[in-house]
């Protein structure tokens, strides 16, 4: 069995592109090799910042021979009356490469035919690989491709070397004008000289000797171990940051670490500022004390084994000190005035070309939040809520947020806190941007939640009113995330409030902006929010799509209640009774949709099953009246179960669409009455169950 190695040596490939490149390498190679008839090979994609590699083990030296059965002309055509081959017969013999005497015959349903087995010898694996490799590499797709030099080739970065070895033999390929060989280079610092790989086997081990860890999983392992050691030396722990770790793994050929410190006084900056500077701007790992406090220390990842003269640590310390001092400069500048001083400036800050300034938005949000507070009857000081709405966007005008846009809200909160504002006020301002979509925490304070929902619904309704609706992958104003954030707050806060009314309240402010009128805007926003609610039910609550549909059809504007119903239905729906109920309700719908409801008159019942169903419905109604106010939703669903049998009997014995119009209307009314009761919980006809085609 042979081992194949392909290494494409490039200039530094973007970290974000590498995981996808490895996946493509594996998939494309596997597919092509399988097509060529290879099986049971092991394929390992590898990469560093400066090379893409793939190792294929357990390849045979050549393809297996392939036998092909060929059928020729009928014997009657291939041989003439004298038993000699005709031109057609000779032609077939030539085609299969045999003397005519050695060509066989087979009996088919239609008579005797010439036939022969042709053996196609398998081609050498090397030949197959020489064809496959360039095709695979050229087919790789990257988020951003480029040309270089004379502009002939397109790839993620310029290609400088290709190694293609099948065991110890060079596979003759040319990729982007570079002929493959066995020569490669090691780490830029530790082993920059070109050297030759003797064989494909042991590639990863050989490269480690040359200062290159080609396996990303191994780089991650090393990085984590190094970080662990450094942290324990500092009597701290590394703040878990899988995303940043994953990026560092892709950014290096040999992962190394340095530990550094910065001036302790810089810890007086808000911790978010320190973290943003270290984490997002310098890609440092953050060290934490036992109590989650920050240390004036950082861990930097370097692409080499060591810091021989301490210059790397010094340099990084200088940069981090400078960056934090820079942030400190902006912080001090901002502190020269109060946040409230900036509020008039919001009049000049555009929210949207048509919808006006952020000052106008702040006013709308304040009113909306207050209306929500009144509807919810929550204990929030209304003047504080208005004040928070007025101040919430002011930090957009601070130097700090200008520099660190991701700290919007956070900085406003800090400045207000430092000014001695009430905790309810500064936390509301701080928290009103979270969660982002479904990610992140819902604000602790009622004011923060109210402000958050009002701000988002105002944004969505306003932009819908002026026609800036998301379409496909385009959502430049982040309206999906905004609506998701509102849904998450309402759901997790357990606000049993009419979400439709909230939406209408938000849309009311934009009646003049939309040519379709306020109602149309509210309807469009409601449909948009409904989609986010469904997503909340399926992705976060974790119910199946049809459960969400069934529950939402019965109403979702009381979101917490819809969540409880969805959870309950998801649990009970697996029973046989619910399968039967779902089928029965599809039938009920088919029969009753579009029919008048003239009320049930028990005098008109003819069959026992009608009376039984009616009694059951009345009983069920009573049960709901006691169970639902107590939120015993699961019991309410359980109370449905026995009705499955009764409905089944009803449909067996009773012909709803009978001749007598009064009897028929009465039966329809009975089914409708029962359906209405069920619809307080869910529209079971939306459940997809086996036999659902009935």
């Amino acid at each position, binding site marked *: 069995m042979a081992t194949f190695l392909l290494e494409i040596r490039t*200039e*530094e490939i*973007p*970290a*974000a592109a590498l995981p996808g490149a490895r996946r493509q390498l594996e998939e494309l190679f596997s597919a092509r090799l399988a097509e060529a008839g290879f099986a049971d090979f092991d394929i390992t994609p590898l990469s560093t*910042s400066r090379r893409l590699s793939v190792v294929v083990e357990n390849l045979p030296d050549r393809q297996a021979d392939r036998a092909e059965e060929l059928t020729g002309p009928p014997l009657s055509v291939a041989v003439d009356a004298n038993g000699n081959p005709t031109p057609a017969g000779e032609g077939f013999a030539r085609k299969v490469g045999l003397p005519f005497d050695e060509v066989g015959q087979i009996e088919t349903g239609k008579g005797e035919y010439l036939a022969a087995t042709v053996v196609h010898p398998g081609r050498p694996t090397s030949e197959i690989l020489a064809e496959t490799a360039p095709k695979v590499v050229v087919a790789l797709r990257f988020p*951003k491709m*480029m*040309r*270089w*030099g*004379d*502009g002939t080739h397109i790839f993620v970065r*310029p290609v*400088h070397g290709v190694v293609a070895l099948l065991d110890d033999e060079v596979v003759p390929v040319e990729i982007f004008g570079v002929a493959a060989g066995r020569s490669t280079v090691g780490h*830029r*610092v530790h082993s920059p000289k070109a050297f030759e790989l003797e064989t494909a086997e042991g590639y990863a081990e050989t490269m480690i000797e040359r200062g290159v860890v080609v396996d990303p999983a191994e780089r991650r392992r090393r990085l984590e171990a190094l970080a662990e050691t450094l942290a324990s030396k500092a009597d701290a722990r590394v703040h878990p940051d899988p995303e940043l770790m994953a990026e560092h793994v892709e*950014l290096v050929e040999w992962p190394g670490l340095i530990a550094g410190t910065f001036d302790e006084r810089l810890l007086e900056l808000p911790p978010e500022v320190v973290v943003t500077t270290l984490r997002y701007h*310098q890609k440092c790992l953050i060290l934490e004390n036992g109590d989650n406090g920050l240390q004036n220390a950082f861990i*930097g990842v*370097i*692409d*080499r084994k060591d*810091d*021989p*003269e301490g*210059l*790397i640590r*010094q*340099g*990084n310390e*200088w*940069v*981090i000190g*400078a960056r934090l*001092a*820079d942030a400190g*400069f902006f912080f001090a500048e901002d502190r020269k005035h109060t946040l409230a001083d900036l509020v008039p400036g919001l009049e*000049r800050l*555009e929210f949207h*070309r048509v919808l006006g300034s952020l000052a106008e938005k702040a006013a709308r949000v304040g009113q909306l939040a207050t209306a929500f507070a009144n509807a919810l009857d929550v204990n929030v000081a209304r003047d504080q809520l208005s004040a928070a709405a007025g101040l919430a966007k002011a930090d957009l005008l601070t130097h700090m947020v200008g520099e660190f846009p991701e700290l919007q809200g956070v900085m406003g909160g800090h400045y207000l806190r430092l000014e001695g504002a009430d905790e309810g006020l500064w936390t509301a301002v701080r928290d009103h941007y979270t969660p982002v979509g479904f990610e992140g925490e819902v604000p602790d304070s009622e004011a923060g939640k109210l402000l958050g929902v009002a701000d988002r619904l105002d944004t969505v309704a306003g932009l819908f009113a002026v026609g800036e609706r998301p379409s496909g992958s385009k959502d430049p104003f982040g309206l999906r995330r905004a609506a998701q954030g509102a849904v998450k707050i309402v759901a997790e806060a357990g606000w049993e409030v009419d979400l439709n009314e909230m939406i209408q309240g938000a849309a009311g402010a934009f009646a003049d902006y939309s040519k379709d009128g306020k109602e149309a805007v509210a309807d469009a926003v409601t449909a948009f929010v409904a989609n986010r609610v469904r997503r909340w039910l399926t992705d976060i609550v974790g119910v199946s799509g049809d459960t969400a549909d069934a529950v939402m059809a019965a109403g979702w504007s009381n979101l917490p209640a819809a969540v409880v119903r969805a959870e309950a239905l998801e649990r009970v729906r697996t029973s046989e009774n619910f399968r039967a109920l779902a089928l029965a309700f599809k039938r009920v719908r088919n029969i009753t949709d579009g029919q008048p409801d003239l009320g049930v008159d028990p005098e008109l019942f003819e069959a026992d099953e009608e009376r039984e169903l009616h009694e059951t419905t009345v009983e069920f109604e009573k049960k709901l009246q006691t169970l639902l106010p107590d939120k015993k939703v699961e019991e309410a669903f359980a109370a449905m179960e026995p009705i499955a049998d009764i409905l089944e009997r009803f449909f067996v014995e009773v012909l709803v669409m009978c001749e007598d119009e009064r009897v028929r209307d009465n039966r329809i009314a009975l089914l409708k009455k029962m359906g209405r009761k069920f619809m307080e919980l869910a529209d079971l006809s939306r459940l997809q169950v086996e036999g659902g085609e009935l």
Partner: protein
Amino acid sequence: MARLGGTLDLQTLILDLQRYWADCGCIIQQPYDVEVGAGTMHPESFLRVLGPEPYRVAYVQPSRRPADARYGKNPFRLGRHLQLQVILKPSPDNVQELYLKSLGALGIDPAVHDIRFEEDNWESPTLGAWGVGWQVLLDGMEITQFTYFQQAGGIELSPVSAELTYGLERIAMFLQRKDSIYDIEWGGGVTYGAVRLEDEREASIYGFEVADVEVLRRHFEDWESEAKRCLEHEPPLVIPAVEAALKMSHLFNLLEARGAISVTERVGLIARVRRNAVAAARASLEQREALGFPLAGDLDIPSGEAD
């Protein structure tokens, strides 16, 4: 060899880099005498990267960014900073190596530092230009923008040029381990602050407080019409048209610093600058073609460069 914290002053830094790139076959050009926001806008970059003619050039370009000005009070920010710009066309195979050696010329020995090339793509909507590349980090400090130009003036580039932009004050500050730009040693015992502090302060006051928005807007219109006239001239006047577009770009930057441009208006103004920049680029390419691409042919690249 390492001169960290030592005496590599700003002018020596510039002279060393220019010497190095001259030895690599670059013409040493001079700063453009029209206000620009970046070295890329110098016609020696913006126009030379078009068409088939090989070219190598290096120059210092003072780059004006009025919105970044900080009244001389912020130790890290300037409204006008110095870039050293290098264009290598076509991008040579060993361009990374050449770049790393340029650091060696400044006494930065890659063997004892952590030098990284991290993805950072570049785009200039006003120039209709974009490229793919990296920011180069030296021990965590961004010292160079490294770009493979893919498009300029809306024109696909072939051959592709490599553009290296060194942020000179940053590098000097880092090498001298100074806590403020204004403490950088410029040369001959004179500090950066002694040379520049006052004009930074004044430029900030002008840009943020004094500049007359109406006048700036009017000049924007004026230069737009001049650009148009140059382009409509038969044959088109390429460099005057580019200069008019650069004027527009600078006026736009001033207006923006002044807070006079709304988000919506911004897009429209940028498009107006781009229209002229793109038209000037086309005219330039046609002009070079009409001249028979006189610089076409092999570049005289010094031997020994590739080792």
